């Protein structure tokens, strides 16, 4: 025979368990880090530096910003924001011009990101790029 009191105590247990569940579950899910582990990454590793072709550029996603990584013929690396300051087109490195060029309206930037010709009103932001133990590492914005 289940007494009223026993039943109430059992229900109290059930209720407490339910309450604990509704508090603990969100907290545990919260503590589990999401796939992208950080708001704004400090660095981005891009693999062995020597494998990056000379006289070429490639666009990487750094956090949510596209960044143009350039390696000149003499082997030096440069990293610039890849969106043109004129109308947001993606820029490209042109080995023949030794400059960064925007196909949309012919805007040109030098390898330090300065707008040197065409419509761009502002320079491109520069990013830090370093070779650490033979690996290419992209750092935060310099400007």
């Amino acid at each position, binding site marked *: 025979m289940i007494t009223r009191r026993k039943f109430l105590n059992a229900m*109290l247990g*059930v*209720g407490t368990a339910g*309450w604990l569940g509704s508090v603990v579950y969100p907290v545990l899910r919260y503590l589990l880090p999401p796939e992208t582990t950080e708001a704004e990454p400090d660095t981005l590793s891009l693999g062995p530096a020597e494998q990056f072709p000379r006289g070429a550029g490639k666009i990487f996603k750094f956090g*949510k910003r596209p960044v143009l990584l350039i390696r000149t013929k003499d082997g030096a690396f440069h990293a610039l924001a890849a969106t043109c300051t004129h109308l947001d087109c*993606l820029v490209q490195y042109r080995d023949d011009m030794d400059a960064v060029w925007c196909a949309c309206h012919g805007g040109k930037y030098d390898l330090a990101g300065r707008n040197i010709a065409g419509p761009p009103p502002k320079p491109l932001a520069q990013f830090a790029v370093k070779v650490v133990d033979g690996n290419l590492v992209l750092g935060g914005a310099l400007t």
Partner: protein
Amino acid sequence: MSRAALLLLLGCLLPHPARAEGKNQCIVCHAALEAKHKAVLRSFQQDIHNQKGLSCHSCHGGDPSKADMGEAMSPEAGFVGAPKPAEVPAFCGKCHSQARLMKRYNPSVPVDQEEKYWTSRHGERLKAGDEKVATCASCHTAHSILPPKDPRSTVYAKNVPATCGACHSDAKRMKGYGLPTDQAAKYSGSVHGKALLERGDSAAPACNSCHGNHGATPPGVADISLTCGQCHAGNMELFAKSPMASTWGKKRFHVCATCHGHHDISHPDTALLDGEKGVCRKCHRPGDPGSRTAEEMKGLLDGMQSAYEAADGGLKAAEAKGMDVAAGWDALQEAKQAFFQARTAVHSFRVAAVQEKVTSGLAAAQKAAETARKAVWEFSRRRIGLGVATLLITFLVVVLCLKIRDLES
């Protein structure tokens, strides 16, 4: 003798206290003249030549130190007065064509304006004796000349369409030349006009960007792609490599203008590629391979556009519900990039080239739409989750109340 000249004569013959030694006598006298002369003096205050330390006699000759009008404005003193229209280019050119002289004021200033001017349609006609055409002062003004980078200047990018339009939109003035007078109106409604005049993008082309300034002339058939290609280099490169280039050359088509027009170039949409009403119909018949290519490209671009709009709408709807869809906007920006590139790829006239860009753009747009869908789903999930949690907690509250009653009964 006109009244002005009489006054001038009187003013300069009589001794005057204001006429102190060392003062510029041109200004002293002309300031005492009627409004028209005063206005010239006033506008010359801000003129670039005045700012650089030049004065009336630098252009007009004469001797400003002489209070006597006869002496000051005598041919012996080098006085030349106001030039006739035909004399203006040489009048300005006596300094502006002198590299050695101009270097003193600005080492990088060009000195070929006069030379270019004689190659322009204006210059050619002037040489032939037409005094109605534009000379230096028509665009730069005579006495309030400002450098082109100065927003007050008549030749500042934003003011150029109005400056050219002052003559070219004037039907009476243009009569006899066989020129249209609607260019300025067409331009201001064009994609370039809107960018420059409405959005204030000073990089957008004004009249002179395509026609040249001192050498102003309509671009020839062969040059127009080069003219547009100054800025639209990607499109020009693709077109030049396309099979269309040689055929158009033979037919003497205006490379860009055939499809896009010139003064009234509007922001291109896929209607240009329409099999029935599009520009391709100028040569292609419906159903021929060219028309089919156009239709296919149009289909791809339209599909991309609607995917973009759907994702955009989805993200806005999710945001209206208070959800944070920053990642979705990033993806949509990526889609927009691909869309730009797909539209550019049309100039290769290859479906595959367009297809490639559209595919990557569609993937990005779908990612954005997916983010929006997830956010909306998450929105309802939060409410369901809240409902469950509320039920659980309310249940516990009820049991607690019963427990208290039980304890106290």
